[in-house]
Structure formats: C-alpha cells, structure tokens
C-alpha cells in the first residue's frame, strides 16, 4: 500500500539503550519506519526482538534505566521524543492510545470501569462528569458490551477476559486518538475470543480512521489485520513491506525462516521447519548483520558490514543479498 503524502507517525533511526551496571545494552538499534493515517502496521518478531520496547519508547514510557539514546519520533511532523513530561502526558491517550497484552491486569481492580473511563475522558476532553458518562456508555456499547448502561458501574473482576479487553479498547479509544499502539492485544485471551477482539479492533479503527501499530508474534493476526508488516530481529528492523508480499515473498532470510516455520493445516511433515540456533543476547550481537550466524545464505560481507533497509522486490529488506553488486544477487 502506498504511504500517504504525510505519515502520521515517523520513527527515524530510533535507538534505545539500557544503562546497566555491567555496561550499556542496546535494545533498539537504528529502527526507522512510518505509519500513515488509518494504516495498520504489524510489528512481528521473536520474544526479545524489541517490539514492545519500540512501542513503549514511542509513548514515552520507558522506565529507567532504559532511555532513548538516539533518533527521533515524529507525530504529524512534530517531534515528540524530547517533549517535557507534562506535554508528553497530554499526547498519551489523546493522540496515541495504548492497549496492553493482559486485560486481566490492565484495569485497576478497585474502581468501576465507568470511573476509569470517565476519568480518562475528563483528563483529555472538555466534558463534565455527566457528558463523560454518556460518552463512556456509548463507547462501551460500541465495543460490544451488552447492557452497557448497567455494566458501566461494575468492577473489572465482574467481567470475563474477553470483555475486559473490550473495556481496555474502549479506554484506548476514549479521546479518539489518531494512533493506537496495541501490544499483543490477543495473546492472553482464549483462541475463540482472539478473533472477536481482532475483528473489533480492526472495525473500530477503520471506522474512526485510527492508525494502529499492532505488536504481536502471531503471524495469523498480522495476515488478517495489517496493511504493512515490519519484521524485527535483535533490536533491528530486517524487513518492511506490504503484508501479502512479505508473507508470500519474504526477501530477508530471517523473514523467510519465520514464514517457513508456520505449520499449515493439512500439510503433513515429519518435523516442523525451524530456524537453526536462537536470537543472540543483546550483549553479544555479532558484527555485521545480526542474523549472520543463523543465516543459510551468509557470505563474507554479512559478517563485516551491517546492512540497512534496501529495496528488495516489493518490500524493503536489510540484507546484502539485495545489493546489486552482491556476488549472490543474481544467483
């Protein structure tokens, strides 16, 4: 999908470091991507690839010792990564909403969901408590909570997991943000409920024109929901492209391995294909391409020089195979 003239969110050369006593760990290293208004960008990768940290860094909630050590984040062309805390707080919830992995622990157990929703609405929008409550009921109806007018006065523990995630989505949509960062929104849910939540999220965002950064390790969810997909490996972006192209014609050997390891129903195999080895620890990322020790197509340059994202067919991949002067480029 062609990106709109002006992206809603631009992340440029983002670098996140953790200053620990035993040295500095680089969790995110030179990551750049953009999200157009109304677009759904899926971010995939193994655990520890830096997907969630990227999201946390964008909304300015990195906890010390983590910090943004380089690069910039732009929302609507305005730099937001260096804003004062109070300015950034006003953006959170108002411009960028967030949904976290576990709906069971995302809600404060001591307050009714109504109180939590109206509190958020009144923080961001000029409404009195009666207007906020009306809006809260409307939001709860929109996310499919039956008998919202009555349920609004219930406490989180009186809702099931799926219902709570709907409440969390309502909370994220409270002030009609233009971007939602959804961090593994379905991972903690029953499989039967996952599809409902994803469908809901997708419908609401397209109705409201909200862009979504969907962080997940579930390729099924990405395939169904995202317009474009970004693949992360060891804190770096390895491939970005339209979702169909990346799934059906991955250009980076890591993406290819990732796609190859998804079992298909009806296909009989003795062993599930897998990528040999495991992702390097953040303190021992190899020189050159981070994937080179596991890569089946590795060659000399991969061990020496780090590749940037480069045009590779219909996608962009950080792989030397796609450099025209590569010895294997036309092999």
């Amino acid at each position, binding site marked *: 999908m062609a990106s709109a003239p002006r992206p809603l969110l631009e992340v440029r050369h983002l670098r996140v470091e953790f200053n620990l006593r035993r040295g500095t760990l680089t969790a995110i290293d030179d990551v750049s991507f953009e999200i157009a208004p109304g677009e759904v960008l899926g971010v995939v990768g193994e655990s520890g690839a830096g997907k969630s940290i990227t999201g946390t860094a964008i*909304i300015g*909630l990195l906890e010390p010792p983590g910090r943004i050590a380089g690069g910039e984040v732009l929302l609507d062309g305005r730099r937001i990564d260096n804003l004062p805390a109070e300015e950034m*707080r*006003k*953006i*959170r*919830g*108002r411009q960028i*909403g*967030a949904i*976290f992995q*576990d709906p069971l*622990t*995302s*809600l*404060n*157990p*001591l*307050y*009714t969901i109504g109180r939590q929703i109206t*509190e*958020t609405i009144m*923080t*961001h929008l000029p409404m009195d408590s009666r207007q906020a409550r009306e809006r809260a009921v409307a939001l709860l109806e929109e996310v499919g909570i*039956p008998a919202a007018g009555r*349920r609004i006065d*219930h*406490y989180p*523990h*009186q*809702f*099931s997991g*799926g*219902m709570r995630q709907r409440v*969390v989505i309502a*909370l*994220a949509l*409270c*002030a009609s943000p233009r971007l939602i960062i959804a961090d593994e929104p379905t991972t903690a849910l029953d499989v039967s*409920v996952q599809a409902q939540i994803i469908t809901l999220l997708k419908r609401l965002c397209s109705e409201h024109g909200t862009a979504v950064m969907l962080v997940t390790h579930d390729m099924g969810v990405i395939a169904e929901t995202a317009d474009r997909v970004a693949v992360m490996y060891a804190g770096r972006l390895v491939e970005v492209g339209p979702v169909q192209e990346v799934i059906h014609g991955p250009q980076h050997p890591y993406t290819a391995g990732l796609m190859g390891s998804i079992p298909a129903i009806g296909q009989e195999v003795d062993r599930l294909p897998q990528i040999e080895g495991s992702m390097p620890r953040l303190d021992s990322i190899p020189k050159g391409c981070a994937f080179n020790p596991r890569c089946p197509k590795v060659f000399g340059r991969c061990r020496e020089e780090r590749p940037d994202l480069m045009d590779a067919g219909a996608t962009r991949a950080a792989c030397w195979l796609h450099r025209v002067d590569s010895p294997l480029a036309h092999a």
Partner: protein
Amino acid sequence: MIAFVVRRLLQGVFVMLVVGFIAFSLFNFVGDPVSLMLPPEATQADRQEMRVSLGLDKPFHVQFATFVANATQGNFGISLRLGRPVSTLLVERLPATLELAIAAAVLGLFVGIPLGVFTALKRDSWTSRAILTTSLIGVSLPNFLIGIFLILIFAVWLGVLPSFGRGDTVMVGPWSTGLLTTSGLRALILPSVTLAFFPLTLVMRLVRSEMLEVLRTDYIKFARARGLTDNAVNFGHALKNTLVPVITITGLQLGGIIAFAIITETVFQWPGMGLLFIQAVQFADIPVMAAYLCLIGLIFVVINLVVDILYYVVDPRLRLDRGGAGGH
C-alpha cells in the same frame, strides 16, 4: 455483608468468652480469695459465711456464668488495692490512654503514609535514603529508650516540654480530656511521639514497599499510557491499592499501641490504664488485672471487626454479594 458482620460478631463473642475465662481463672491462680480477704483470726464459720455470700460455694460453671454476667454489665468487683469499683477506676483512666493511643496512631498514619509515598516515588533521592536510614532507629530502638531520650532533650536540656503527667484536664461529660488545654496538649507531645515512633516507621516502610510493588503493575502502566496526570496515577490509583495491607497493620498496631502504652505511660507517669495495670501487678490486684485483660481483649476484637469491614469498603472484589460476573 450483614451475614459477614454477624458471623464476625459471633466469633468476637467467642473470643471474649475465652478471654473472660482466662481472666476469671486468674482469681484461682493466686489461691483462695477468702483467706486473702479475711483476717487470719477469722473462724471457720466466718469463712463459710463469706464463701456463701461471695457465691464461692457454687459449682465452677455457675461461678463463671456469674462472672460473665457481671462483666458484661461492666462490673468487675472492687480493687483490692484502692478499695473502689474497678469499673470506675477504668473509666477514669480510659480517656487518658485512648487520647494518647489515638494521638500516636494519627501521628503514625499522617506522617507514615506521606513519608512512605515519598520514599517510594523518589526512590533514589538523597532525602529518601536519609529518611529510610533514620527509620531504622524507630524499628530497632526500644520504646522506653526513645522516651527517655526525648525527656532528656526536650524536658531536661531544652526545658520546653513537660516530662511527666497529663497537664490540666477538662471534664466533657464523663470523659476527662487533656486536648482542650494548652498544658494538656503540651504534655501529650512527648509521650505520643514516643508511642508513635514504631508504628510510624512500620507504616512508612509498609507503604513504601507496597507502593513500589503497585507502581510496577500493568494497571499503573496502563493508567500512565492513558495520559492520566501523575497525581491521579500515584494517589488515585496506586496509593489506594496499597491500603488493604496498611489497614491491616494499622489496626493491629492500634491494638498494640493501646496495649504497649503500658511502657510509655510508665516512663512519662501518664495516668492511663497501663500505669494502673502495672501498679495492679505489683500489688497482685486481681480484679483490676482481670478487667484490664478483658478490656484489651475487647479493644482488639472491635478493631479487628472494623478492619474487616474496611476491607469491604476498599476492595470491591471482596463484596461477593454484589452482581455476578458477566459472560463472554
């Protein structure tokens, strides 16, 4: 909720019966009360007459029932040492102890909670570390030593506060209060600070560790992600979640403060129940000791009941009788 309170009340009655039984058996531990009360030259007939008039010829369970019946009406007999009804003595002394204990508890909570929140939010600041180090003194120094130090500094060296007694008191109905006179308030400062030291540090450390725990939870992170202000997150969302354990400890501490006021009251010659009790022990004044035991037992039972009810108020998850969980 009602059923819960009724159940707790019944349990409380049972606890009080046990406490009463222990208090009652005190009388039998110190030997035959008749020989204590009559002069050595009394005749066997005198003894028998006394025994009947005191009801001591009746079987054990009847005697205990009589004791319980009297105790529920506040009748604990006559003090052997002072020759006055025990209930009158306790009613005279109760206000002093309660005022001291409540002043100490208020001090402990209203200084302990803010300090706990502060040291949790500014975890790495120099001030927090200084406060935490100082608080070790409160945990580790015995109460009477702190009292003596305070007397030394503020009464002896600086001479700004009285070192003993309760100052002038005013009668408000049957209640003698020191809170309405300047000298009464001045006299309250040192003993209440002494008594507050331990619960204050305990509450502070508890609030701090609970806050640190709660600040790490997902719902706090989510509250920040929703753009709520720091005050709303820290005080509206985080602090309230630390309250359940704080209520528990505060309740237990309040009982402890009243019971352990004995030591502070002795150091400051505070005319409260603790001082009365210590003197009763020295003179083997059994009725006073029994009554004190029952009263402290009652205070603990009431505090525990209040604490349990407060749980319900704070934590909706405990209110099982309100609305069921919804389906998917």
